[in-house]
């Protein structure tokens, strides 16, 4: 299943908008679904489009975090 992530909460429950099903032949259950809510406890993984992840920002954030821990 594929969609635009609209919100996440502290349990990693996901809300997706404009949902599409990757293989409608095999999984026709959600063909008519446009928006959905997924219980976080059942999620195995979330694939993010690589070009939309700002790795520089993440690396800087983890470095800052690590520096804080060292100085403590």
């Amino acid at each position: 299943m594929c969609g635009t992530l609209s919100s996440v909460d502290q349990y990693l429950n996901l809300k997706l908008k404009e949902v599409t099903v990757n293989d409608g032949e095999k999984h026709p259950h959600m063909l008519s679904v446009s928006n959905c809510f997924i219980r976080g406890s059942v999620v195995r993984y979330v694939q993010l489009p690589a070009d939309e992840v700002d790795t520089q920002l993440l690396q800087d954030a983890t470095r800052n975090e690590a520096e804080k821990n060292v100085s403590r």
Partner: protein
Amino acid sequence: MKFRYFINMAALESYVNHTVGIITADGRHFVGTLKGFDQSLNLILDDSHERVYSTTQGVEQVVLGLHIIRGDNVVIVGEVDEAIDSRIDFSKIRAEPLPSIVH
């Protein structure tokens, strides 16, 4: 203390009184009108039916009426677009029944 699972109450507010499709942990698929829910994701479904998928025949729709589903069993709550749903010919749909959730 026992771990309690509480969802954000705003999460499903927009689905109330809409047709929703529910997939449960044992792989079953329910469709009905969402009448209510609580912080544990317990759901009240009105005019509900179960869609039973099979590879040998079309989708069987079992009428259930008013149903309460316990939140533990809920996997996906999907808002159904009725315009698309009414165009699907369920007698022609063949699919493997969904497996149950493995933790």
